[in-house]
């Protein structure tokens, strides 16, 4: 295991940011810490990096305990949420920083920086200052800066949080390819479940300072451990004690075994996918996700009465 966290607790005054958090990250893997803001994800990242001292518990990197090891000697690269560029240095000097403080020979520094700038597609902007870069460029600079010192572990705090949607997508694909090339163990923090599902090999759902569940994206989606995980990794309907995903709701013209009546409130066509908002006889609202073809078959219209049942539902033990 590249990173192991055992029972880490961190308090800020009265507030418990992390409550006995444990997790394990395999060598060379890409892991997402997923959860709502304020849930403790960033704090966990900072504890791993050594920027916060845990009140209890232990962090191990490559099998070694990190107790009392300062951030300088953890072999960790951290990309901050707002990238923390050195504003008075050019892009080139930012990337070279870690090598220069290690007093590496000049030629080596120059060669390595050139190579990294090519990797992050910033070769043409080497002499610019961070203020002259776009958000996406600044992010790639921060990544190159962190990679320059060849960290054993790369930590990214909301790496795409401050970017607009299109740049986000591009960088996401690019980061995935970069990871496949470099195989550096990576943990990133995100509150976007789609981002986590798409990028990560392992997702750790963190909420209110605790790990709700850890596993492969498909496992989390198919077998969520509790209602929180179920509702965080995808849209969900709650019917009493039963939880149903919208795509597991079946719509029919005629009653069948186990079906109930529902009123169609709204039909939203999003291309191939169509979202249908329904109300059951007892007043519960329900949303269904169906295909265009199904809608046409059913001749679905707002105000119509249909019959619904679920293919699949989940009941959590109390």
């Amino acid at each position, binding site marked *: 295991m590249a990173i192991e966290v055992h029972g880490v607790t961190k308090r800020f005054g009265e507030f418990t940011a992390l409550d006995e958090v444990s997790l394990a990250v395999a060598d060379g893997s890409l892991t997402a810490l997923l959860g709502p803001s304020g849930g403790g994800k960033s704090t966990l990242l900072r504890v791993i990096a050594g920027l916060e001292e845990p009140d209890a518990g232990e962090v191990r990197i490559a099998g070694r305990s990190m107790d009392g090891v300062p951030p*300088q*000697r953890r072999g*960790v690269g*951290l990309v*901050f949420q707002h990238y923390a560029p*050195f504003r008075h240095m050019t892009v080139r000097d930012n990337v070279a920083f*870690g090598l220069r403080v*290690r007093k590496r020979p000049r030629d080596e520094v120059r060669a390595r920086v050139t190579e990294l700038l090519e990797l992050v597609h910033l070769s043409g902007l080497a002499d610019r200052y961070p203020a002259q870069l776009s958000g996406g460029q600044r992010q790639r600079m921060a990544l190159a800066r*962190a990679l320059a010192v060849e960290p054993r572990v790369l930590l990214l705090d909301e790496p795409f949080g401050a970017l607009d949607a299109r740049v986000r997508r591009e960088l996401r694909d690019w980061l995935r390819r970069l990871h496949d090339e470099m195989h550096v163990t990576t943990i990133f923090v995100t509150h976007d479940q789609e981002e986590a599902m798409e990028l990560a090999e392992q997702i750790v759902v963190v909420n209110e300072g605790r790990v709700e569940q850890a596993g492969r994206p498909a496992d989390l989606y198919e077998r969520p451990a509790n209602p929180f995980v179920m509702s965080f990794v995808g849209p969900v309907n709650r019917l009493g004690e039963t939880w149903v995903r919208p795509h597991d709701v079946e719509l029919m013209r005629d009653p069948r075994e186990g079906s109930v009546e529902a009123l169609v409130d709204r039909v939203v066509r999003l291309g191939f996918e169509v979202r249908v908002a329904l109300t059951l006889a007892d007043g519960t609202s329900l949303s269904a996700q169906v295909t265009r073809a199904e809608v046409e078959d059913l001749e679905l219209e707002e105000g119509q009465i249909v019959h619904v049942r679920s293919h699949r539902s989940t009941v959590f033990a109390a």
Partner: protein
Amino acid sequence: MSARTSRLGLRTVALGYLAALLVAPVGMVFYRAFEHGFAAAWHAVTTPDALHAFWLTVLMVAIAVPANAVFGVGAALVIVRGRFRGRALLGALIDLPFAVSPVVVGLALILVYGRDGWLGGWLTDHGIRVIFSTPGIALATIFVSLPFVAREVVPVLREIGTDQEQAAHTLGASGWQTFWRVTLPAIRWGLAYGVILTTARALGEFGAVSVVSGKLAGQTQTLTLFVEDRFQSFDLTGAYAAAVVLAALAVAVIGVLTLLDRRRAP
């Protein structure tokens, strides 16, 4: 009244105010200094006593500025980054020299370092003379010019936050490397501004220095004290010429300040 005339009126008032309070008196000093020709003025400021006063003032600046630069940056770091209870008190203490009259500062120094002061006996026993000597003048100058660097650096430190320093740590930089390569460059404009204000204040200090120096010509007389001495001895050319030297130094300082402002602007 139209906007145009009111703007013109405001400008006239502002310029008139500046002319009456600043330009006219300073202009008069220049005029009176050179009234009897350049040679007379030059002679007046190159007497041994005048030269001594000039170099003593330069020495005081050379002592007070580095001392307060180091202390100011340290204090600013403690005020902004420290995590102890007395931080607010420290911030208030640093402003003390702004609030206390320089004359009171001078008297206070005598109470501590003078012959009958707290430390006076011990100092006399060890043959160290502070009051009526150069160390006393240096202490007074440092005291009155103490707040500037800290006051200029504190807001800059607050604004830059700790992200850059933490990034430097994760990249392997030691505390010392982080200070020299990240923190200091980030606060350099604030520090430069503070240093210039400190210089200006140290050059012009009169009250506190006048109390502790003993005003011995050729020994403990700074340039400001020299001006006063010449004036009271009815050597008006000497007084005005020395004042012009002080004014020239101040103008040079303002010039550097303006240049810095222009560089900092973009």
